[in-house]
């Protein structure tokens, strides 16, 4: 039995500033140009996620055998460009991925990168060897960011709770 999740529908429609998601007529131009879809036999399929989103079929998006249906996107934004209805697919995918993270279904790479940014202010923290190399190349020292400020705003957005910090 298929159940429609109205909360999910509201979320994807609301989060999209231009409210254009409802105009999708499933022409599949997005899947046509998708580089990941091409090399995975459609295991990743943007048209399908959009369909499931505006129908509110939450069970068809989350809690799957593999999270590749949602996280396989390489975020090249090509679908956004060719979409005749300009529905801004990548923005919808971001909303769904954010939900996937709070449901603890996100890939480890993503949460651990976010955790590094929370801890050090940078996705790639500075290392002594690189500092030395910068020096040898005649490059200026990188001014460290104010970590206190970074953590303060990320606590305000509840990232600490999302990442269980």
């Amino acid at each position, binding site marked *: 039995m298929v159940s429609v999740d109205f909360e999910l529908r509201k979320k994807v429609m609301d989060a999209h500033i231009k409210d254009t998601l409802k105009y999708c007529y499933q022409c599949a131009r997005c899947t046509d140009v998708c580089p990941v879809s091409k090399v995975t036999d459609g295991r990743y399929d943007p048209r399908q996620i959009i369909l499931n989103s505006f129908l509110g079929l939450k069970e068809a998006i989350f809690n799957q055998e593999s999270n590749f249906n949602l996280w396989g996107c*390489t975020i090249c934004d*090509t679908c956004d460009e060719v979409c005749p209805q300009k529905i801004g697919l990548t923005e919808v995918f971001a909303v769904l991925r954010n939900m996937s993270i709070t449901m603890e279904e996100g890939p480890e790479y993503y949460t651990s990168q976010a955790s590094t940014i929370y801890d050090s202010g940078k996705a790639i923290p500075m290392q002594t060897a690189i500092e030395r190399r910068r020096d040898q190349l*005649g490059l200026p020292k990188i001014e460290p960011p104010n970590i206190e400020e*970074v953590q303060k705003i990320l606590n305000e957005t509840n990232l600490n709770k*999302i990442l269980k910090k």
Partner: protein
Amino acid sequence: MAKVDEYKMFEGCTIGNRIPFIEASARKVFDKLGIKTSEGPFACCPDPVGFNSVDHSSWLAMGARNLTIAEAEGKDIISLCNGCFQTLKAVNHELKHDEHEKEKINKILSSIGKEFNGSINVWHFVEVLYNIGLEKIKENVTHELSGLKVACHTGCHYNRPSEIMQTDDPMKPVKLRELVAATGATPVDYEEEMLCCGAGVGNIEEEPSMQILANKFSSAINAGAEAIVVICPACFQQMDTNQKKAEKQANKTFGVPIIYLTELLALSYGIKSEEIGLKFHRSRLNALLEKHGIK
């Protein structure tokens, strides 16, 4: 366009903290062209692929905080990286066009005594070079790279989504090609020019990522390219560091050097390869440099 006296340099985590030799080439080229920059205590942009996928509001808040640092000095930002460029430009755009989000983010920023105003612009270094004028770019060339055939790869976040980025044609960008041609090198036409490098999907599964990369390499090499010119550190690392993996997956040998646009310009300006750390590339450049008489 208002004249910009000095930009805030945004080298980003990947270039600054992992492959700084690219920054060295950029700074040397900027010096030759009179592009002035200064440092700032920026945090991670943050990553438009990774961090925005985790939490959009956190991504907006962090991006906005970086923008306020440049706003405080009234200076535009120059980015050396497609990812940082997309984040900062898109955050700037979203907050300038969405009062509700702006109010929400400014409430968060008030906890650290900052406020987003939307008073500065964010530039990709390719735009800055292009706006200087191809004539000026050419004037500094002392070692014309004539005969060198290269495949141009802009990467995705330089020009898409075009509605926000407004840098170049979203599916047929020209600025990189023209800058490459200014050095005397020849940009080749190849079928997969607009194909993504595949780095994003590599965060979760390696096989599709390496297949996309292998398809890209094959197309460029078939069109006669001796090197691939890039303008994004994520594309650079995917193509340079992971080239061996792509070879294994496709059961082919590519052996194609990956060159950052600023490195290509530096070489054509007579800057020595050891000054810009070309030895730190994984895909060897020696044969190519020798063939074209570059020291």
